[in-house]
């Protein structure tokens, strides 16, 4: 039979106008919900970039806080007789905290995913996965509070640092927040590698560790990279943990034992009281736009990696 709609024959009998109308309504509702998310994203983008625009175009704002002012001073002192909007301490602070967090979170996240997918007996895996996913469900303010009260004292006891609250402490707490992200994506990627890969490797005489490290992990490499990037995006944007755990002193310092102030924490701490439309307000929106663009780029790359993994495994 050569009918134009090959699936039309699958439609159950007795389908009337009512059924069709209902289908149409359901499709419409689904479409609306899908586009609500996209509309939200667009609105947020417009809102953030409009707020940041005066920094780039308004001469009145630029007198106090133009792009040049961001690097003319090493100080972040937006409230005062002469406001100073030096971004260098915020950029170094963000970088420092994120690097520390990734140094903790990447090995823990990736290796625990390898363990869960390649080595753990099924029953242990059933325990491990939900446990790590619950960690993802802990509100970040709780992780931050934990870091402020508990881990800060540990960090100081171990390192002998002068300040309790520092980039190391914040990075450590932040790692707790992003390990689940890395773990979940990596574990999914590893599990998606076909059994035949492992069987072939084992049949050639490779040990389980050799198989996991040299066959499965590279096969899932793009997915692992995507997991790491998604963790990175979360680390850059995460706010409450660093606000509570890093001490928020706007210092330019490479030492992880010094306090650090991040872009996200500055927005959270200061936006509550700025005068709407003031230079300080626009600068905070500019920081927001900066974070938005950064995480957007990271997410795009993560998406590309996931697509690559899909193609690779489909090709196999």
């Amino acid at each position: 039979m050569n009918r134009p709609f090959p699936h039309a024959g699958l439609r159950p009998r007795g389908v009337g106008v009512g059924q069709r109308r209902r289908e149409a309504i359901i499709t419409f509702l689904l479409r609306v919900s899908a586009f609500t998310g996209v509309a939200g994203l667009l609105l947020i983008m417009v809102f953030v970039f409009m707020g940041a625009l005066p920094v780039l175009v308004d001469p009145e704002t630029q007198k106090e806080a133009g792009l040049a002012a961001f690097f003319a001073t090493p100080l972040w002192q937006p409230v005062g007789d002469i406001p100073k909007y030096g971004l260098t301490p915020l950029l170094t602070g963000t970088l420092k905290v994120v690097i520390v967090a990734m140094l903790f979170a990447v090995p823990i996240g990736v290796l625990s995913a390898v363990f869960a997918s390649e080595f753990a007996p099924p029953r242990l895996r059933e325990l491990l996965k939900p446990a790590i996913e619950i960690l993802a469900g802990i509100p970040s303010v709780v992780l931050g509070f934990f870091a402020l009260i508990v881990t800060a004292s540990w960090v100081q006891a171990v390192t002998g640092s002068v300040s309790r609250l520092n980039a190391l402490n914040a990075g450590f707490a932040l790692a707790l927040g992003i390990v689940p992200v890395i773990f979940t994506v990596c574990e999914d990627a590893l599990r998606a590698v076909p059994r035949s890969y492992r069987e072939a490797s084992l049949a050639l005489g490779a040990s389980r560790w050799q198989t996991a490290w040299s066959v499965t992990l590279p096969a899932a490499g793009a997915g692992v990279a995507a997991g790491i990037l998604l963790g990175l995006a979360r680390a850059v944007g995460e706010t409450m943990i660093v606000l509570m755990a890093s001490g928020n002193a706007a210092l330019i310092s490479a030492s992880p034992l010094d306090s650090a102030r991040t872009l996200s924490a500055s927005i959270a701490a200061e936006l509550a009281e700025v005068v709407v439309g003031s230079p300080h307000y626009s600068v905070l929106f500019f920081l927001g736009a900066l974070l938005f663009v950064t995480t957007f780029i990271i997410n795009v790359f993560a998406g590309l990696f996931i697509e690559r993994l899909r193609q690779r495994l489909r090709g196999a």
Partner: protein
Amino acid sequence: MRRTGLGIAVAVFATLGVIACGSSSRRSMVTLKGSDTMVILGQRWAESFMAAHPGAVIQVTGGGSGTGIAALINGTTDVCQSSRPMKDAERQQLQEKYGNPGTEILVARDGLTLYVHESNPLEALSIAQIKSVYTGEVTNWKALGGPDLPITVYGRENSSGTYEYFKEHVLGAADFAAAVQTLPGTAAVVNAVSMDPNGIGYGGAAYAKGVREVAVRKDEATPAVLPKEEFVRDGSYPISRGLFFYLRKAPEGGVQEFVSFVLSDSGQSVVTEVGYFPAR
């Protein structure tokens, strides 16, 4: 399937109905918003007031003095709690929107307190010494007559009324040092100082639990005093401030009842219980 949908719809409408009835019976609802320093105080007042006036609902939230003033201007709160006087620009906004520059009511006083770790032997600091610590000129306790240890300096975020008050009355025109660690809320500052032998922090007198208060002298010639009621009242404690209620217009109805309770003897005894000082 259809029956379940109907059930859900009934449940939803029933819930909405309950919510609607609930809110309509709460006629005398008063909202307070603003200073984090005054949140505890506001809540205690609300509790005592609601115990004495069944049916009245007082809702208290923090966010910072500036947040509260913004909410007052935007009309989203009845009463703004503020730990600093309103600025001219803010009064002007109120004037433009409501034809009234706002009604100010002094409801309590606070001695801005300096906290150190309980193991710190330092008894007193002058305003000039405090300034030198917070501007970063002095970074070791030795220079202040303490042990040879570095100073870890804690402060509040620049959105807080306490930050602005401290900057204005202690630092003057100078800026905070970049090394000052800023924390969200006085409770967080107290917490950090209570665990840090090198730490110093500032905040409301009511929060000084688990830390030691430092006596403050205005200059070298005057005696150092602790933030105690008599010293705050007679003005000899050098960094005390008023805590205010701000209203869009003269109080009336439920708001007036609440304000007169706050200023009554029982309202002012709540102030003392919480750890601040009476307005009168």
